């Protein structure tokens, strides 16, 4: 099949894209701090090292083979035809970026952004596996995510794949639209987090013999809230660069993207404040932080096409949803997710994708947009979740991912790294662990 034409960017758009992509590592730094702060003090250094390690593994594996599966619009891809309509299912790029000229071309900017985004997606499961996921196993799991799961879905959305072509092929609006990665980054990472929480099981002492959860509070609200602020800056870059590269937004539209991103996060944090104040009598820092991040995750899909008032609605629902879902997962489904990765990234991202279908006003053909978004969500739940669960379950058979009982009692820092993050502090974490 003849590849679709690649979008051509003006010089100012290229310069802006480079600037925005340079901001994206701040989102990774923010998520790493959030994950570390919501875990135990005895696992803080391990959490930060795991974050750095999975970013390193993700970038390397994506360079080796990830981009060759993902590709970009205008690059070669494997296509099969059904009823006369082309289904592009995987890219056909050579490995090691050999098909790319790293010269500021649109494809090279997309590859650079994706190399950072895949690290962001790989950080998300670390939040769910905190305090019990071995360092080597988290790196191996990241290799599967960055080498196969992420590139495959990202090709379907951003590489000219079949989801992006639903509009052209089947009259579903503009096809599946996601400017900043609510689906391909947040939901893929969030569903992998769910798979890992299921495979690893809850932390020791999380659930008592009566089946009720015990509170194991995060060790540093300061780290968590500082992480939220860094994540905000990173998301501004992520959404702006994504809007230009993947939806062809004009450079002036970046103002709308930045306003929408900020409003969505702000309204989500406010909604989280109201919900937790009503529920507990006081605002809860960790749930408000989850609301903020959930607002950011939900903002990405429609940041370039929604009005600011609609972004506020997206954020408010995301903030309420994450606060409610965190309790539902912990009490109802007995899923131990210390970092709130599933409620924030999986549910927040799914809401962002669906909200675009409900709220966005496109010029021209718009009917069927919600259905296109719905097909994307069905693909995430019906295909990506079984895929990522199956791959990690298989990995777990050959390379057990959960730390030993002694290691968990001792703390991940001492057990895997040989030294605590805060050696001079007396900590009381043992009171949460059943002997």
């Amino acid at each position: 099949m003849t590849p679709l034409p690649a979008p051509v960017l003006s010089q100012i758009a290229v310069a802006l894209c480079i600037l925005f992509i340079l901001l994206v590592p701040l989102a990774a730094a923010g998520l790493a701090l959030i994950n570390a702060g919501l875990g135990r003090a005895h696992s803080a250094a391990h959490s930060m090292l795991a974050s750095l390690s999975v970013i390193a593994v993700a970038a390397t594996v994506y360079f080796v083979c990830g981009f060759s599966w993902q590709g970009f619009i205008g690059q070669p891809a494997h296509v099969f035809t059904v009823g006369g309509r082309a289904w592009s299912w995987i890219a056909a790029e050579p490995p090691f970026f050999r098909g790319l000229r790293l010269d500021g071309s649109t494809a090279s900017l997309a590859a650079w952004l994706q190399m950072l985004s895949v690290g962001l997606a790989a950080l998300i499961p670390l939040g769910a596996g905190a305090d019990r996921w071995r360092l080597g196993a988290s790196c191996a799991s990241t290799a599967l995510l960055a080498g196969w799961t992420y590139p495959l879905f990202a090709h379907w959305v951003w590489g000219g794949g079949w989801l992006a072509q639903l509009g052209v092929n089947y009259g579903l609006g503009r096809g599946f639209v996601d400017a900043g990665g609510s689906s391909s980054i947040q939901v893929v990472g969030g569903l992998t987090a769910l798979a890992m929480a299921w495979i690893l099981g809850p932390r020791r002492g999380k659930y008592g013999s009566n089946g009720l959860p015990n509170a194991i509070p995060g060790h540093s609200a300061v780290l968590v809230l500082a992480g939220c602020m860094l994540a905000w800056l990173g998301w501004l870059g992520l959404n702006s660069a994504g809007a230009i590269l993947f939806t062809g937004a004009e450079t002036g539209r970046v103002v709308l993207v930045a306003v929408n991103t900020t409003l969505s996060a702000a309204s989500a944090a406010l909604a989280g404040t109201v919900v937790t104040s009503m529920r507990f009598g006081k605002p809860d820092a960790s749930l408000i932080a989850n609301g903020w991040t959930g607002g950011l995750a939900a903002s990405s899909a429609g940041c370039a096409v929604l009005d600011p008032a609609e972004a506020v609605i997206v954020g408010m629902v995301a903030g309420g949803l994450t606060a409610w879902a965190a309790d539902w997962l912990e009490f109802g489904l007995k899923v131990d997710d210390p970092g709130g990765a599933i409620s924030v990234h999986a549910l927040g991202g799914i809401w962002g994708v669906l909200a675009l279908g409900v709220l966005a006003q496109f010029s021209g053909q718009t009917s069927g947009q919600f259905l296109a978004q719905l097909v994307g969500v069905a693909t995430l739940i019906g295909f990506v979740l079984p895929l990522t669960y199956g791959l990690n379950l298989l990995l777990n058979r050959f390379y057990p991912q959960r730390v030993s009982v002694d290691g968990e009692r001792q703390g991940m820092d001492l057990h895997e790294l040989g030294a605590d993050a805060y050696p001079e502090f007396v900590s009381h974490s043992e009171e949460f662990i059943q002997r």
Partner: protein
Amino acid sequence: MSWVTLAMSEGYSMKLAGFLLLLAGWGIVLSTIMLIAPTPARTGFVLAGIAVEALGLILVARSHLEPKGERQG
């Protein structure tokens, strides 16, 4: 423990059924998009596929309800 023994124990059959339902629901959605013209029926079939996925998700979630916090790594 062999794969067959494993599949028959520890609630793996419920998990397996759940994941098969997830894939089946996705299959219904894809088939609908490919085969049915843009009518309200198409939306209905897509929603039916998502309902099958929801059933699968419920089964998978139920198969993981038993706390595993005390197990060895």
